[in-house]
């Protein structure tokens, strides 16, 4: 059985590793000169920056991605962060993430516990947003700001744009898997290890290989056309999102075409800093609910010093994009950093923004439509088809896992 995979991003590589392990002949075609997509390293001025995601695995060594990496035999070391996360309060003091309730009155704490327990069991069926869901029970500025900070950091969305039921799935997963962790060697170490698994299973990965077309026969994919050459396949996996995939074949399914038009990509800004002294002091997430734009920051060199030149720290901030004025958003982010680290000496290495054709997530959380397509043996994986309640790359792993179940692997 032959599987052709379009795109060597994390989703394509995870699918490739699973399928090649199960005995499929796997061939992956990547348009860019390197593998890993938005989960790769970017060498810059002696630092290991990243093409897209931060060097972080949201649920660390116990999460769905780590589980899948172990399953396929990918050699990746994940250092769990301790503390997992801290929150910077309006007073400037920091508290551990798990202690976020401590700022509330006793009555509110009890109420929050009860509501959370009940809502995790019976998730809202309506499309109520996470922000409105909080407002239904609490009129508490701190909780609303924390929700925006958390949603911005992990999903590149504001709490008003995330369905409460998706957020409750994420909270469920936080209790189940805990978090977060840093992959030693950065994002590139994860995608590199997956590529090694695929080649040791006899699979092949081609870079600079542009897939032009998915060749169909009635409701089946027969293969793909790459750089003008036809590749026959029994299964085709696409790691480039539903919309781009649908443009590669004549799609007659109107319901599907309509649904994929509604999928909204998420936008974000990452600012990479270098500093001689530590700015955060641990590798956990530093949530900044009271900053104007920055949602959170991490300092990965506390877990893996090799991500920066000797004696340097690598710090990355992330913010969701709120307005249409990208330059203004970046300027506000830079101003936030100045205010968050007064008197500290740091250098801005690179400012990276993501939107439209190269977004944070092709399908923002809550707008995923699953892995299936109108062609019975064509599946979409990656950040355009994440699994329920999966933050970023954890969602990619859950989505690949769902697709593999459908295929029977």
């Amino acid at each position, binding site marked *: 059985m032959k599987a052709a995979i379009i795109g060597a991003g994390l989703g394509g590589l995870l699918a490739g590793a699973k399928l090649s392990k199960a005995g499929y002949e796997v061939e992956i075609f990547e348009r860019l000169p390197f593998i890993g997509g938005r989960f790769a390293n970017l060498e*810059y001025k002696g630092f290991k920056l990243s093409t897209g995601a931060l060097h972080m695995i949201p649920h660390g060594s116990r999460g769905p991605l780590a589980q899948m990496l172990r399953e396929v035999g990918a050699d990746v070391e994940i250092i769990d962060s301790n503390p997992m996360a801290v929150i910077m309060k309006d007073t400037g003091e920091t508290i551990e993430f798990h202690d976020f309730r401590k700022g509330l009155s006793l009555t509110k704490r009890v109420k929050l516990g009860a509501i959370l327990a009940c809502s995790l069991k019976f998730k809202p069926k309506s499309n109520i947003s996470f922000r409105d869901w909080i407002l239904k029970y609490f009129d508490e500025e701190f909780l609303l700001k924390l929700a925006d900070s958390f949603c911005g950091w992990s999903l590149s969305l504001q709490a008003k744009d995330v369905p409460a039921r998706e957020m409750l799935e994420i909270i469920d997963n936080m209790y189940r898997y805990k978090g977060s962790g840093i992959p030693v060697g950065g994002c590139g170490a994860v995608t590199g290890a997956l590529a090694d698994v695929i080649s040791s299973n006899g699979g092949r990965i081609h870079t600079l290989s542009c897939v032009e077309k998915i060749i169909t026969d009635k409701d089946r994919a027969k293969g793909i056309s790459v750089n003008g050459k036809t590749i026959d396949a029994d299964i085709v996996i696409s790691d480039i999102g539903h919309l781009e995939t649908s443009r590669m074949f004549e799609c007659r399914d109107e319901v599907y075409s309509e649904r994929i038009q509604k999928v909204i990509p998420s936008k974000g800004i990452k600012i990479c800093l270098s500093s001689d002294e530590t700015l955060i002091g641990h590798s956990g997430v530093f949530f900044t609910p009271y900053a104007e734009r920055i949602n959170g920051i991490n300092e990965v060199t506390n877990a893996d010093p090799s991500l920066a030149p000797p004696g340097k720290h690598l710090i990355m901030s992330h913010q969701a994009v709120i307005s249409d004025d990208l330059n203004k958003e970046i300027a506000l982010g830079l101003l936030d950093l100045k205010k968050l680290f007064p008197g500290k000496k740091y250098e801005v290495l690179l400012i990276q923004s*993501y939107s439209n054709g190269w977004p944070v997530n092709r399908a923002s959380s809550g707008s995923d439509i699953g892995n299936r397509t109108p062609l019975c043996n064509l599946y979409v994986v990656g950040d355009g088809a994440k699994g329920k309640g999966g933050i970023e790359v954890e969602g990619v792993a859950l989505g690949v896992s769902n697709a593999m179940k459908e295929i029977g692997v």
Partner: protein
Amino acid sequence: MKVSQQCVGCGQCAAYCPYDAIIVFGRASMNEKCVECGTCVRYCPVCAIAEE
């Protein structure tokens, strides 16, 4: 090099530029160090860079 409206500002071109000639702030732009070598064209994920 010419950068189109497709550019999102991901910075991949800047990291791969052998001449340190690309500045990124919401969008990529080339400075006077650019020698039009065309390396950035291949590394752009949204095909936003073309030779002039």
